[in-house]
């Protein structure tokens, strides 16, 4: 008996009972769709957090100082110059909504008041121009380096160096612009920001050193822990803290955020795993039920098949193939439906789409498994029928 023929005849049989087959496989459809969404959301959430986290930079930590005493350029210079593990250090003050304009174009953007190391820590590369010079920083010149979105929106697709732009009502000269991050990330545009020398910001725009953070980049991943220890003892000393006092400052690491992200996506996944397994079990029982009905409805057919030479295992296979086909068709529908819902929600959240072949393979095999597992009992019942009893069945 050939498998392809069996599958063909199973599909034909299911088609004859189209409504019933459709209703029966809804459980499987929901189960598989939740598996697909679960894996998709899990990955997307991880990508989102990874990208947010990446705003710190690779192997980077951020120190938020005590309100008692600001972190200063002295701190960043000392740390950068005296420890092998600390490769980069840059002050940073973030101003979230700063008005910038040129001619009739106006926008509100993000401003980072930084030192040059900031660009290294976050992995920015220059597309045009140069970083801040010693002279520009010392003279508190009104210079600015712009992200790619700002360049495109205000200058156009050309070299912006030398152009003037108004930031918070003051004229600034563009001395450089950055390569785009190239992220297909729709909600947060990392390229929509400007950066100016730390001291320029605090003397020309807003003197709020209290919000100053220190971005620190370790030389490599292995040195990150050591760098954090250095920062700890350095800042405890700076703030004259005794051994039993709690840290008066905060060190934010990527890892902590990643852990939170993983926790969130794990919680989300467990929830969906619950939904998926319940609906697959319920769907499976539905399939078993309908297969049992089908077996007793078709007892006479089973008798005829046996009378013309179907062996017990041919009958067994016929019914298992039918239930597997039902599950597989439900599975395919579920995969499509799952991706559709996932895609729509992702689009609304502005998260990144993640296509996982593995989740397709897993949910597909699961559907097959449910088909075999829940189809076996009814199929066995059919196969065990005595040919003569089956033929006489009314």
């Amino acid at each position, binding site marked *: 008996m*050939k498998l392809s023929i069996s599958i063909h005849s199973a599909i034909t049989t299911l088609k004859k009972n189209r409504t019933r087959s459709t209703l029966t496989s809804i459980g499987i459809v929901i189960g598989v769709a939740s598996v697909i969404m679960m894996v998709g959301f899990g990955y997307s959430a991880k990508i989102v957090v990874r990208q947010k986290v990446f705003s710190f930079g690779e192997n980077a930590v951020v120190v938020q100082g005590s309100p008692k005493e600001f972190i200063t350029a002295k701190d960043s210079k000392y740390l950068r110059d005296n420890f092998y593990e600390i490769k980069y250090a840059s002050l940073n003050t973030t101003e979230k909504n700063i008005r910038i304009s040129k001619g009739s174009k106006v926008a509100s953007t993000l401003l980072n008041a930084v030192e040059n190391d900031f660009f290294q820590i976050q992995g920015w590369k220059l597309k045009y121009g140069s970083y801040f010079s010693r002279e520009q920083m010392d003279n508190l010149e009104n210079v600015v380096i712009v992200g790619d979105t700002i360049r495109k929106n205000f200058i156009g697709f050309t070299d912006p160096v030398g152009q003037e732009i108004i930031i918070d009502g003051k004229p600034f000269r563009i001395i450089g612009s950055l390569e785009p991050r190239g992220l297909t990330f729709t909600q947060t545009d990392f390229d929509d920001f400007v950066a100016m020398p730390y001291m320029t910001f605090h003397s020309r725009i807003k003197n709020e050193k209290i919000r100053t953070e220190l971005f620190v980049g370790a030389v490599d991943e292995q040195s990150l822990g050591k760098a954090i220890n250095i920062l700890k003892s350095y800042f405890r000393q700076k703030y004259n803290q005794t051994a039993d006092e709690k840290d008066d400052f905060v060190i934010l690491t990527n890892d902590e955020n990643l852990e939170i992200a993983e926790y969130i996506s794990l919680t989300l996944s467990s929830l969906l795993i619950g939904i998926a397994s319940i609906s697959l079990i319920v769907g499976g029982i539905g399939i078993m039920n309908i297969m049992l009905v089908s077996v007793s409805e078709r007892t006479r057919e089973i008798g005829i098949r046996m009378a*013309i*030479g179907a*062996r017990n295992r*041919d009958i067994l296979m016929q019914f298992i193939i039918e239930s597997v086909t039902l599950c597989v068709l439900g599975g395919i529908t579920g995969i499509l439906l799952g991706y559709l819902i996932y895609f729509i929600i992702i689009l609304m959240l502005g998260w990144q789409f993640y296509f996982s072949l593995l989740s397709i393979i897993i949910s597909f095999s699961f559907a097959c498994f449910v088909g075999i597992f829940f189809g076996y009992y009814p199929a066995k019942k059919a196969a065990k029928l005595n040919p*003569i009893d089956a033929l006489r069945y009314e």
Partner: protein
Amino acid sequence: MAKAENVIEIKNLSKIYNAGEDIAVHALSDVNLAVKRSEFLAIMGPSGSGKSTFMNILGFLDSPTLGKYIIDGIDGSSLNNDQKADIRNQKIGFIFQGFNLLARTSALENVELPLFYRGTVSSKQMREKAAELLKLVGLGGREHHIPSRLSGGEQQRVAIARSLINDPAIILADEPTGNLDTKTTNDIMNLFRKLNDELGITIIIVTHEPEVADFTKRKIVFRDGKLIQDVLTKKKKNAGYTRELYK
């Protein structure tokens, strides 16, 4: 290799059903019968006399309680379920009274089905052979009709075509003309006779109607599970020969 002369050999065959507590129904008791190759046999007898029970045993659908049955040289008592299924598939063609065909399945697919279980033939060959047989039974051009679109006689023809597809040694037909009108009955019986004459297939049919039995070459009669009569059918050419088995 010389095949056994008798295509069917039945010795002291009994079938006892236990209906309820201690009521035993002797559906068949001590039946003996030998059928040669290419015979055309009618089984007659009143309702409940054991005709169907006998046919089902001949067709490996059921097993006897006692006795020996050898079909085309194969001893039926020594076979397991799979072997019986294979014999039903390859040596025996079944035709029942009604509801013979798979519903909502085309005539062609119904005829192909035994080959499908045999599993040694390509689907193209299956289709060709099934179409050929449908032509033989006079249903050329009706291949894709489903049973509900065919008349009772036509459905029986499809069943006959199906019974022929594995070149069986024996065709067993249990009241094949049971609910057909006289004309259709005659058509079907003529078809059987043709298959018997031209292809030499052994055919056994169960019938209540003497006119149907007249198409055959030999008649056996059951009563209360016993074979009580075995006669050659009276015809113009071989009339007159009768033999009483049980007094």
